[in-house]
């Protein structure tokens, strides 16, 4: 039995030794980093409240909106730059970051609104209180490195500050997905290593980590058996050596 235990331990250590080093090291990183910084919200602020808000009863009645735009699953209210909008969900995902389809209607004028580059950058600016200016704007439709779980088209607005802040605004709804910066990307890099998520899928259910986890199980269990075996054989003698 110990013959096989040792043999398994050696082969397993050969296969995953380096990854084990990476796992423990990245685990230590998560333990010691500043989690507040790692959220990426250094330059994020709550949007300003509207000065003179329209009473809800004075908005366009929802009945007429829904008559004009049938095939709606849910109508909710939202605010973009402190102005009231109706958000019509046409196709609803289980979560906001799953695929959803929306229509955005100005609740005062009834105008169908698209979150254009201009509107998206204004939403981003309203959420930003850092020293930077906008350097670039891009519409990302898939594989958003900073938000890998986000499955909906999203505007990325980059700012010129010391932290290289990027602000993300969902195209369909105008929702502020969030801020990201170099501190968050630093933590994200170690999450990628820890999860062996080399494809940046934002997931730890990939095939390579399953294989490595399987071998690690054998390594840890064989090591555990070996240790117990050595303790029984009196190989851990602290008192005797003194």
């Amino acid at each position, binding site marked *: 039995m110990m013959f096989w235990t040792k043999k398994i331990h050696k082969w397993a250590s050969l296969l995953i030794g380096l990854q084990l080093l990476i796992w423990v090291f990245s685990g230590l990183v998560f333990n010691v980093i500043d989690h507040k910084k790692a959220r990426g919200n250094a330059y994020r602020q709550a949007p300003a409240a509207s000065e003179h808000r329209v009473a809800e009863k004075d908005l366009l009645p929802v009945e007429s909106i829904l008559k004009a735009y049938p095939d709606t699953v849910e*109508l909710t209210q939202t605010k973009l730059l402190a102005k009231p909008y109706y958000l019509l969900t046409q196709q609803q995902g289980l979560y906001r970051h799953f695929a959803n389809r929306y229509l955005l209607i100005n609740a005062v004028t009834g105008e169908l609104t698209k979150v254009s580059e201009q509107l998206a950058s204004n939403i981003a600016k309203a959420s930003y209180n850092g020293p930077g200016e906008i350097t670039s704007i891009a519409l990302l439709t898939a594989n958003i490195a900073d938000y890998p779980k986000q499955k909906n088209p999203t505007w990325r607005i980059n700012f010129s500050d010391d932290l290289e802040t990027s602000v993300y605004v969902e195209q369909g709804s105008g929702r502020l997905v969030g801020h990201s910066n170099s501190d968050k990307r630093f933590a994200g890099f170690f999450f990628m290593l820890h999860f062996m998520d080399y494809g940046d899928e934002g997931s730890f259910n990939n095939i390579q980590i399953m294989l490595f986890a399987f071998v690690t199980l054998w390594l840890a269990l064989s090591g555990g058996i070996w240790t117990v075996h050595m303790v029984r054989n009196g190989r851990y003698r602290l008192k005797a050596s003194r």
Partner: protein
Amino acid sequence: MLFIGMQFVIWSVTGAYMVFFDIDYIHGDSLIVNHQTKIQPEKLTYPTQTLFQQYPQAENLSVGMLINREVYRFNIDKQKFMLDATNGQQLSPITESSALAVAKHFYSGDGEVINARLITENPPFELSSRHLPAWRINFDNFGSPALYISANSGKVVTKRHEFWRLFDWMFRFHVMDYDDGENVSNWFLFIIALLAQFAVLSGLVLTYFKVIKPAFTNNKKRGNSATFNGQDKPLNNGGES
């Protein structure tokens, strides 16, 4: 290894559990039917102008479905309300039979309802207190699935099964947070992980001297390419040493 060997076993077992089970499955996504029932505008026969006269403080009005019925949902202060959009009848808080109907409507699995319980305070760990009051509907199936239905909005606020509950425990053991499972920055983990780092490094050194180097030098001595037997022999020798 005597000190942190156990933690290595815990890390590998909990880690393996977390990577083998798909996270969407863990989150119970497969327990839910994602209905796309459309609002029929002609059913909205109770005018919202009347609603605002009856409930002048109503805020954040929304229109949606309660199974197959068009409803208005709104807040007054922090309190949530729900009205039938055809006649303005107040539906919130929903009755037990409505909660059961909603749960069955959304539940995708097999098994009958075991019981339904209204939770108004002291929610279990798996239910955020902001969802209160909520109905917990337990289903009789593998993994003990449960759906939580908000009593005031009639929406499914969350779902749980044993695989998720077990995942939460696995995570706690993985980050060595034996307190509440929320904190990765604890001193205990730091010390053990630091020791583990030394253990892994020394293990790598051992692997080099006991596995890699013998195999390499042995092949050289034999003067042939790395055949399977050529690698296997020194491993056996090393295993006995």
